[in-house]
Every structure is written in structure tokens, then in C-alpha cells.
């Protein structure tokens, strides 16, 4: 982006709530079922069917309220958003409009080499998702899958406080991280559990706000970045060549990386919102709100602080661990079940262990029942039974867990040689015929020490305890 322009961006994020059943019906809320499998009479809009609120969704909204610093409204109202589409069986979507359940929250996001930036969030409201229309299976027919109908969504609407693609990605990933931590959303963007509409305008610094366009339904960080970059350039070019931006709803074409305006017919709805007469307003007591707070658990930022202060971890390593909730579960399990230094655990985890996971295309959760073996391995290292290098070599076998690390080490004869007598002999052998180098050492050349250590380690096939070799060598050389 040229220096003469700045972007003003607001985000509407749709987070699918992780609940057992739908927002207003008892049908399972799950992805990947056979088409139209999770549909009951309510979901399919049969005559005379009535919605019944799943209070679990309210609890998830309250949790989000605490985590994103929202005001949790004791009075909120479900309204009907009316429009016709075949994947919307009722002919309206039940949503919240005038009285949302959450208002005025914020998140502080990271910025490159700068202070954190506060992104204000205007509101978050509960609503039903629609079904899916599939137009590309048959040239003549469209197909409707109603499984997603009535799935609970929390729509989180930010203020236009974001000013770059980096900002947007940071905001969205913070949001995702928090929602996953508090178990409100599974964060699976590919399956559509989290998706964003981006409202973007450009202006020259100091100018009034420009006309904005809304890019609909982006479901990956990559697409968000591409869409923002393309759309901002498009708007700048129009203005620079003397044109005007038309307020429009845009679609992002994932194959070309371009945005295009939707036909006006596709979005020119008058939704005729009005309070849903089938549902009572939601009235929450302070008690109902307060009871949720203890279920929140530790938020990512709180964890970061604790890892740095309590476990004395580096900030960067801590950040890697907290980036996914699953990592922290494994890390904290390793720490609590062993007396190995947390710093050592952390560096093994983000180093060789994650490398193993990545190479073998596994999930971190794969480690959940492997922690005992990992701990045993790290203990063998910290007790000098095996060397760091041997530890790294046998890590894959340890994770695969065919044998316990102790058995493995014994069987393969990998114990570190820490026997003083044995080491003394090896060192004596190594020093034989090395008068020249011994003299060099005595006359002050430290380098020679490294040469001798290497020679001794080689003689032990890497199993010699380097600390002890060092110590005995120094003693002998100083004689």
C-alpha cells in the first residue's frame, strides 16, 4: 500500500458455538453428517413448529462476554430477519437486532515492534445459521442441505479500528484463540466454524471516512489477507483515476484472489426486523451471569504472563505454546507430572517434539497419552543417565511408545558413561602420545581442551558424560 493511503476496516465475525444441539431445536449441532440428517420439524420450518431456546448458547455468549470485556446485557431480544431463500426454511432468520446480548467489548492485539493496539467491539449477538444451497452438482437443479439450519452463531461486530491486513489477521487470530480457550467455538475455519465479513474503505490520512465495501464470508487468514489487499488496491485505483467508490457487497473469488460486486438483487433486502413473538425476551439475573465466570478458565494473555513469571520461560517460547490451547494442555501436564525444569520441558516441546509432530503430520493432542514416556526421557537426561544427543536420537521411539525410555536405553546400551574409573582410563589413553598438545595447554591454549574432550567423546561413542570428562581432563592436565 502506498504511503498516501490508509485503510479503515471493521470486521463482522461469525463464530459457530460449540454446543450439543442447535439454537432453537434439539437436533445435534455437528459438522460432516449426511445431507439433511440433522433436521427436525422445527429446522425444516414445518407448519405450527415453535422455537425453544437452548440455554447452553446463552451460557456460551456470557462466557464470551467475560473473555472479550463486553457489557453482558440482562435484557436482550430475539428478532426475525425476514427474507426468502430456499436454504432458510422459516422464511426468516432468528437473530438479535435492537437489543443484543453483548455490547461494547474490546481486545488488545499485538503489533509488530509496537505497543498493543486496542480494538473496540461494538456488539455481539446470537443468531441462527441458514442451511446450504449447492448449485454446482447438477446443471438443472439446486440442492439444499438443511443440516446447518439453526446452528447457533455469535456474530461479533468490531468498530472500524483496524487499519491493515496484519491488524485484521492479528485481531481475528486473537479472537479465534480466545474463543477456543473458553470452549465457545472450535475455531475450525475450513469447516466454517469461524468466518468473517470485512468492511473496508480507504482514505488519505486526515480525510473523512471513505465509502466502504463489504467483502462477505471469508474463511481463512490467507483469503482475508488476499481480499483486503486486492480490495484496497481496487478502491485506491478507482479514486486515483478520479472515480467514486460505490457502496457495495463484494464476493471474494478464492481461485483468482479478486473481489467482485454482488448483483444488487443478491443483497438489496429490507429485512423487516421485528421481535419474534414466539420467543420471550432473554432476561438474565446477575446470579445467572456471575455463575458462568468461574467456568471461563485461564485466558491466553493470563497464561502468557504466568508462563513468563512463574515458569521463567522466554516470551517467544511462551507465545508458541499458548498459540493453541492443546499445546498448553500438554505443556502443563508435563510440568505438573515431573520435576524437570519447566524451561527444559518448554524447549524440548517447541523444539524436537513439535518437529516430530509436524514431520509425522500428527495433532498435538496425539501426545496426550504419551506424556509419561516423554517425562521419563527428560528425567534420564536431567539425571545425566543419557546425553542430550542420545535423547534427541531416541525421541521418535519414545513418542511412539513401544518401550519405556529406560528399557530402550538399557537395551540399546546408551547409558552415559559416568564411571570415574572408566573415564580416567579413556582419558589416559587419549592423552597418550599427545605431549605436544599437553604442553600447548599448559602454556595457555584453551582450544586444546576442546580437542581432548572431542577425542574422549569419540572414544566413548558419544556416551561419555561430557561434564565429567571435562572435569577429569582439567585435573589431569593441571598436574
Amino acid at each position: 500500500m502506498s504511503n498516501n493511503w490508509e485503510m479503515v476496516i471493521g470486521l463482522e465475525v461469525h463464530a459457530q458455538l460449540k454446543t450439543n444441539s442447535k439454537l432453537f431445536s434439539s437436533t445435534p449441532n455437528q459438522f460432516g453428517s449426511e445431507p439433511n440428517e440433522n433436521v427436525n420439524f422445527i429446522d425444516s420450518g414445518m407448519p405450527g413448529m415453535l422455537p425453544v431456546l437452548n440455554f447452553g448458547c446463552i451460557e456460551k455468549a456470557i462466557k464470551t462476554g467475560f473473555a472479550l470485556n463486553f457489557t453482558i446485557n440482562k435484557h436482550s431480544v430475539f428478532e426475525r430477519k425476514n427474507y426468502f431463500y430456499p436454504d432458510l426454511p422459516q422464511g426468516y432468520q432468528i437473530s438479535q437486532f435492537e437489543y443484543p446480548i453483548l455490547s461494547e467489548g474490546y481486545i488488545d492485539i499485538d503489533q509488530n515492534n509496537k505497543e498493543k493496539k486496542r480494538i473496540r467491539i461494538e456488539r455481539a449477538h446470537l443468531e441462527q445459521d441458514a442451511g446450504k444451497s449447492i448449485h454446482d452438482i447438477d446443471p438443472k437443479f439446486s440442492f439444499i442441505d438443511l443440516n446447518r439450519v439453526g446452528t447457533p452463531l455469535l456474530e461479533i461486530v468490531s468498530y472500524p479500528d483496524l487499519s491493515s491486513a496484519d491488524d485484521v489477521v492479528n485481531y481475528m487470530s486473537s479472537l479465534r484463540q480466545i474463543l477456543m480457550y473458553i470452549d465457545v467455538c472450535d475455531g475450525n475455519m475450513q469447516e466454517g466454524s469461524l468466518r468473517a465479513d470485512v468492511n473496508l474503505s480507504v482514505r488519505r490520512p486526515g480525510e473523512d471516512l471513505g465509502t466502504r465495501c463489504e467483502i462477505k464470508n471469508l474463511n481463512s487468514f490467507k483469503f482475508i489477507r488476499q481480499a483486503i489487499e486486492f480490495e484496497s488496491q481496487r478502491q485506491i485505483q478507482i479514486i486515483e483515476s478520479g472515480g467514486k467508490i460505490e457502496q457495495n457487497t463484494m464476493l471474494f473469488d478464492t481461485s483468482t484472489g479478486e473481489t467482485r460486486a454482488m448483483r444488487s438483487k443478491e443483497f438489496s433486502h429490507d429485512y423487516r426486523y421485528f421481535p419474534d413473538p414466539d420467543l420471550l425476551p432473554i432476561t438474565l439475573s446477575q446470579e445467572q451471569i456471575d455463575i458462568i465466570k468461574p467456568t471461563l478458565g485461564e485466558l491466553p494473555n493470563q497464561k502468557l504472563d504466568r508462563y513468563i513469571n512463574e515458569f521463567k520461560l522466554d516470551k517467544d517460547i511462551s507465545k508458541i505454546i499458548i498459540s493453541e490451547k492443546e499445546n498448553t494442555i500438554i505443556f502443563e501436564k508435563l510440568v505438573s507430572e515431573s520435576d524437570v525444569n519447566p524451561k527444559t520441558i518448554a524447549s524440548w516441546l517447541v523444539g524436537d517434539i513439535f518437529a516430530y509432530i509436524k514431520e509425522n503430520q500428527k495433532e498435538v493432542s496425539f501426545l496426550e497419552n504419551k506424556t509419561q514416556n516423554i517425562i521419563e526421557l527428560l528425567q534420564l537426561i536431567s539425571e545425566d543417565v543419557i546425553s542430550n544427543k542420545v535423547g534427541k536420537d531416541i525421541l521418535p521411539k519414545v513418542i511412539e511408545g513401544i518401550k519405556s525410555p529406560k528399557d530402550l536405553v538399557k537395551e540399546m546400551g546408551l547409558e552415559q558413561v559416568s564411571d570415574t574409573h572408566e573415564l580416567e582410563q579413556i582419558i589416559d589413553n587419549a592423552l597418550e602420545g599427545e605431549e605436544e598438545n599437553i604442553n600447548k595447554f599448559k602454556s595457555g591454549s584453551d582450544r586444546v581442551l576442546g580437542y581432548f574432550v572431542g577425542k574422549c567423546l569419540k572414544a566413548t561413542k558419544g556416551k561419555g558424560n561430557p561434564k565429567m570428562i571435562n572435569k577429569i581432563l582439567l585435573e589431569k592436565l593441571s598436574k
Partner: protein
Amino acid sequence: MKKSISQIKKSLQDKSISVNELYQEYFSIAKKNSHNSFNFVVNEDYNDHNIQLSQSRYDSGKPLPLDGIPLGIKDLFCTKGIRTTASSKILSNFIPQYESFVTQQLINDGSLFIGKNNCDEFAMGSSNETSYFGPVINPRKSKNAPNDNFVPGGSSGGSAASVAEGACVASMGTDTGGSIRQPASLCGLVGLKPTFGSCSRWGIIAFASSLDQAGPITNCVEDAAYILNSINKHDFNDSTSSNHQRDDYVTNLHTKFDQSIKIGIPKDYLKDLNSDVLQQIENTKKVLSKHNIEFVDVEFTTTDYALSTYYIIAPAEASSNLSRYDGIRYGLREDGKNLDEIYLNTRTSGFGEEVTRRILIGTYVLSAGYYDAYYRKAQKVRRLIKNDFQRIFQDVDFILTPTTPNEAFKIGDKLDPISMYMNDVFTVPTSLAGLPGISLPSGLSSNGLPLGIQIIGNYFQEKNLLKLALLAEKELAFNE
């Protein structure tokens, strides 16, 4: 004289009639459908098994509360496996796979369904002339024009006509702005609209969700109490269903009030009424005054706004409730070149004129730029109407009004919608306030057509409302 539920049960218990004989007595009339009061009568053998079960319960001396009682069901209640149409072309082929909460209670209590009663399309109408299956004829005749056909009222016109013609003992209706009380009145029957939230709306095809309420049309007040006992239950699946403790409406129905009763008569309702209708109020006052009942004049401040308010709120909700009839999943579908055409063709062909009118009105009043002027304002006025009633109920126990401003009119007589809407002027305020109201026959007009009075009670006061209605019924008993 038609037999009441308690009389019928007695005859069944003492074996002076069998369940089957009773059933055939009503079914034979229903089958003829001579007043077009049924959209469908059930098949000949539909109830065979149920009749047997019912008979064996009587034989064993353990009948259910409504055992063997033949009922009509307004074609707005979804009945599992029985075609349910709302008297609309758009649902003319719809067979629900579920049973409405209310009709399920009636089944559980042993009653037998005879058929689905004709009604105004989607319950929108006051004369039962908007039905896709044609108008219902009021079994009652004018003595001055015995060959003319009169409307039975609406929207539960088929329900009322079927009870009046003797095709069923009672019929389940629904009332949104008067759809039980007004046809009951025009057919000389009892019609009860319970407090909003009493009877579950689950499985009833929705017209206006904040107003719709199920209730019985019966020959007598006691029958209404029997039916109410069965259907008035909390239902978790209707979020607006109240979970208060229900009374037993039959027990102690005939005992006298312990306390003195004060009834308010709204002066503003009686302006410009014809003398026949005014006479009903005067009569009632006269016969009830003997029973330590005091009558006082009361005055509403909101009466003039009730109809306008109703005709904003009800169509607004209807326009949204009826959007599910789009030809995509069930019901009528008319093809088209694209999606918009399918919608347009299906809904144009599937909905009648009155339904279309109300969808358009409702869509208009909810539109951007008009919402505040119409819908929001109407909701505020609705609140004032509720408050108005509560103010009056601080002074009185009940309110007495005519049920309708006139007797039944001839089929085809009222052509403009506004004069049709005026029929509900006395029933609509009660509906907007969510209060219970009962209509009972009070006398005949100079043409010999039935006229009724409406008694309105405070929220969930159905028990006392029925007690008072029963007393009035006894006192007003007139020789037809």
C-alpha cells in the same frame, strides 16, 4: 335440546347408548357435510379401533375424561396422518407427521376426532368466506328470510357450524381476534378464548403468534370446562406457554360464588349499537342482579384504537409466519423459470385474496421507514390497551360486552374488508390484552338469529369466568 358432555358420559356409563351408537349419530350428520363445515371427515373405519377401546374403558368402569366424545377439529391444528390445510390451497396436500399439543391432549383423554373443520384461510376472516374449500353455511336461519344462507362467523366458522348442526359434541377452534367467540355468538353457542399462554400453540398453524390461542366451541358452558381441563396444560415446547398451576375447571363449577361480584359494562362499547344487541346487555344485567352481582359503568380510553392496532400487529406477524409457505419443501409448488418466479407463482396461486391482503399490509408496516410509524407505535398502543384493562380490573371482577355488534349476515353481503373487520370490534381488545373471554348465547334478534354476550375475566381467571358464565347461561335460558 343437545346433550352435554356430562349427560353423554352418563348415558355411556349406564349403557343406555354405546360409544359406537353415539359416534354414528354424529358421524352420519358430519358425513353429509350439508353446511360445508368440514374440509374433511375421517374415513368410515378411522375410529373403529378407538371406539372399541373407549367402549372397553366404559365397560370396565374406568372411562377417560372425554372418553368417546366425538369432536370436530379446526383445520388449523396439525393432526398426525390427517390432511391439515388451514383451508388454503397452498397447504391443500399437506399431511403432518406430528400431532399438535392440544389435539394430543384430547386424544389422550379419549375423545374421537370426526373431521377437520372448515375455517377462514389461515384463520383470516370473520365470516368463513375466505376458505379455499368454500364458505360455511350457518345452520341457524332467519325467521324473516328462511331461505337465505347466513355466515357462521369466522374464522372458526366450520367449528361453530358443525356443533350447531349436531355433527360433533364440541369443536376445537382458535381465536386470534375473536375467531372463537364471534362464530360461537353467531351460531348460538358457547366459545371460550383462554388467557394467552394457557394452551400450547405447538402444532397449530400460526396466524399471529402473539395473539393465537386455542379454545373450544361447545353447546354449553360446562362442556367448555370439560374441554379446557384437557387442553389447558403447560408445554415446554411453546416458549410462551405459562407454567402456572392450572385449576380443575369442572369441579365446583356449579357452586355459588363465595364473594360478591362486580361487573363492569364499558359505556364506550355501547355507543351506536342496535337495540337488539343493547337488549342482550340489559337482559343479562337484569337476570344476574338477583345474585348479589353489582353492575357498574366503566369506560375505556383506548377502544377506538384497538382495531387499527390489531390490523397492524396481526398482519405483521402473519406476513412473517406465512413466509415458510414457499413451495420448496412441502405444500403447493407452481413452477417458474427461476427461483423468484417459483416464489411468485406459488404464493400468488396458493394464497387467497384476504391472506394476500394481510401479507401485503404486514410487509408494509414492517418495512424500513414505516416500522416506527406503524408496528412500533401499534406495540405501544397495545401496551396502553393492556394497561386500560388493568385499570378497570382494579375496580371490577369481570367485564360484560356484546360479543358482536350485529347478528349473522348473509353470505356475500359484506364485501369491503373494513366493514368485515368491524365485526371483531368487541373481541379484539381482549385478544390484544391477552385476557380470557367467553361468549355465550343470550337471546335472539328480531330476525330470530342468535346473539351473544361476552364476559371478560382477568388473566388466568378462567375458573371464575366459567362459573359466572354458567350462572348467566342458567338465568338467560331462553326458549328458542
